[in-house]
């Protein structure tokens, strides 16, 4: 029963970029294996990686094969299925590519082994956000499941997380970003500065939030707090009273007709925005790029309360040992050595080891994507498609500007089940 749970949940941020790529990756991977002489094929190391990560890309598998001779077999799932698979089918993968809030759920099951940081060549290059929660020494630690809170254990075998940095790293961070509201600058007719603006009566019937409970509730929390309705102790771990207040507020807004629709999949959010049904909504950065690619103005609007952030990393399956484990370390060191980082940065995500990624990006790319400078030439996606014209500036500015203003991380609440039940009431109301 539990194994027959593969669902087609539409196109999510996680699956958009890589479902096809992963399928192609599998095909290409197996093709490469059969292409080699028999003996090589038998000794070659294959690592099976699964996950939600947008980093599950065919290009990465191909480059890994080229640089290391390691065959990567990638499987893409959505986040719920990933959490389940991580726990229930621990032998079916070697590398888990999962988000930090999923790690919080699955690590206590003992399916992921911590990494010895002395074997991680680029450990000191990893941005401090993932070690102590602070991007710069004076940053404020964000609420929710901040990666550093689940980043370390005292020793192998522990199932509880360490309070501070230790020699055992649970996951090497790979990819992360800061999410905010998307707007149609041509249709909103005024400056949007705060999460509360989505509830402006002027946008009645023209606003939308996403109908994925665990993320939607966070966006709702950002809105509630921005409106001054409530002050959460921790947005990422609400009490039942806080959940009640938030959901009651959403139900009232829904009945007043504030929302045009609720979206569940990536393409829905793109269509709502590009058709003009909605002028302000929760959005993911590739969706904003997709609307722009249609020639329609769309802005990923930075807001004064800050961003809702998410991040993922690579974890080692507990069953890895010997040559396989060495190969996994080798793969992770390669992953953080720069090529992948540059690739991810160029897609608008962030790499965890910025210094190494810089060497694989042109000065103009680094300036546009990371430093928030106007583009000097055309900015191209990894596949060569022009994303931005000269003179364009990235919404939200530089890496420090964006990741330095994270208000909350995607998270899993203790009252998760209650929250989901109340969320369903909101949708049914």
């Amino acid at each position, binding site marked *: *029963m*539990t194994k027959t*749970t593969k*669902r087609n*949940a539409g196109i999510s941020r996680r699956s958009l970029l890589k479902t096809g790529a992963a399928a192609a990756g599998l095909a290409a991977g197996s093709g490469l294996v059969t292409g080699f002489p028999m003996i090589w094929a038998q000794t070659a190391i294959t690592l099976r990686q699964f996950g939600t990560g947008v980093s599950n890309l065919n290009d990465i598998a191909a480059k890994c094969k080229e640089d290391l001779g390691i065959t990567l077999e990638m499987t893409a799932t*959505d986040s*719920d*299925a990933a*959490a*389940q698979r*991580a*726990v*229930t089918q621990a032998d079916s993968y070697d590398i888990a590519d999962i988000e930090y809030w999923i790690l919080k*759920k*699955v690590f206590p*099951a003992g399916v992921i082994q911590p990494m010895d940081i002395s074997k991680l060549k680029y450990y000191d290059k990893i941005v401090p956000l993932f070690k102590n929660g602070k991007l710069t020494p004076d940053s404020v630690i964000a609420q929710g499941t901040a990666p550093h809170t689940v980043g370390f254990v005292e020793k192998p075998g522990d199932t509880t997380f360490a309070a501070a940095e230790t020699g055992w790293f649970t996951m090497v961070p790979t990819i992360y970003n800061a999410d905010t509201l998307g707007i149609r600058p041509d249709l909103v007719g005024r400056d949007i500065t705060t999460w509360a603006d989505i509830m402006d009566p002027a946008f009645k*019937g023209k606003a*939308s939030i996403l*109908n994925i*409970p665990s993320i939607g509730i966070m966006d709702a929390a950002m809105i509630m707090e921005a409106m001054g309705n409530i002050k959460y102790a921790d947005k990422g771990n609400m009490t039942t009273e806080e959940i009640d207040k938030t959901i009651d507020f959403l139900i009232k807004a*829904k009945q007043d007709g504030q*929302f*045009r*629709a*609720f*979206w*569940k999949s990536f393409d829905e959010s793109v*269509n*709502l925005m590009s*058709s*003009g*049904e909605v002028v302000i909504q929760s959005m993911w950065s590739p969706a904003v790029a997709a609307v722009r690619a249609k020639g329609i103005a769309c802005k990923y609007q930075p807001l004064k309360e800050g961003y809702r952030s998410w991040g993922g990393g690579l974890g080692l399956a507990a069953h890895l040992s010997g040559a396989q484990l060495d190969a996994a370390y080798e793969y992770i060191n390669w992953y953080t050595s720069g090529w992948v980082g540059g690739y991810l940065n160029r897609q608008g995500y962030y790499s965890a080891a910025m210094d190494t990624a810089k060497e694989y990006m042109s000065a103009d790319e680094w300036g546009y994507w990371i430093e928030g400078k106007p583009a000097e030439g055309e900015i191209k996606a990894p596949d060569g498609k022009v994303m931005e014209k000269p003179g364009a500036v990235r919404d939200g500015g530089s890496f420090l500007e964006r990741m330095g203003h994270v208000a909350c991380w995607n998270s899993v609440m203790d009252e*998760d089940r209650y929250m*989901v*039940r109340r969320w*369903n*009431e909101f*949708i*049914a*109301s």
Partner: protein
Amino acid sequence: MTAAIDDAIANPAALKRTRRPSRFLAALPSYIQATPLALILGAFLLAPVLMIAAVSFWDYDFARLYPDFILTNYAETLGSWVTWRTYLNTLKYAVIVWALTLFIGFWVAYYLAFHIRTATMQMVLFLVCTVPFLTSNIIRMISWIPVLGRNGLVNTTLIELGIVPAPITWLLYSDFAVVLAMVHLYTLFMVTPIFNTLMRIDRSLVEAARDAGANGWQILCNIILPLAKPGMAIGTIFVVTLVMADFTTVQVMSGGQSASVALMMRNQMSLLQYPAAAANAVVLLVVVLFMVAGILRVVDIRKEL
């Protein structure tokens, strides 16, 4: 002979015992003939339903299912006002869509059966009715969005003609849109069985009625409608079960603002709450079976077969 009879009287079980093998042998071909269907239904219908029923009593957390026998899933499903409200909402869709598809479907079938003279033309027009089915369900549904949207065909036309000053927003992402799409998708399921029954009505009955002085209305009410009932009942079963189990139409056309029972199940499954979804499925199955039983009590569809 008499001894055998005496023996049989004295010991009826002995008689049974001696006759059973031959009776079994006689019935054997029937059993063999029924076996393939029984196996298929058993493996692909009965077994999954039983499995769903079993899982509905299990316990679960975020990742795992625990075989158990608990009633929490049912208590949570039946004890929540969301469930009741969602069922009411789904039933509302079912009733409205049923009434509309029955009305439209009957008249389309009536026209095809009684007003088109040649059998060839009837078949041609009937095939025309099925043309939309050459594309997928989802495409037919989604194609309404650019028509009904805020900047869609209908609104643009109305505004340019000066009929309305601002776009009508209830055309899309509303109950209206859901019902419209469902009627569009499901009317053919009503047309087909009704057309089939209407074609079987003996035309001499209509002639006899006319000879007896009945007018068109009386013929319709007293002859055609009663004889079309089995077709209507079959169409009703199709439409009602389709609407009760629908989630994509509700999700897409209401813009996620409205809930249906199947959508609720889908939400639970996407959060890996399989036992809760299974309990919901069992409840829905019972409700739909009662509805079908009700329809069958009112109309004898075996007349159709």
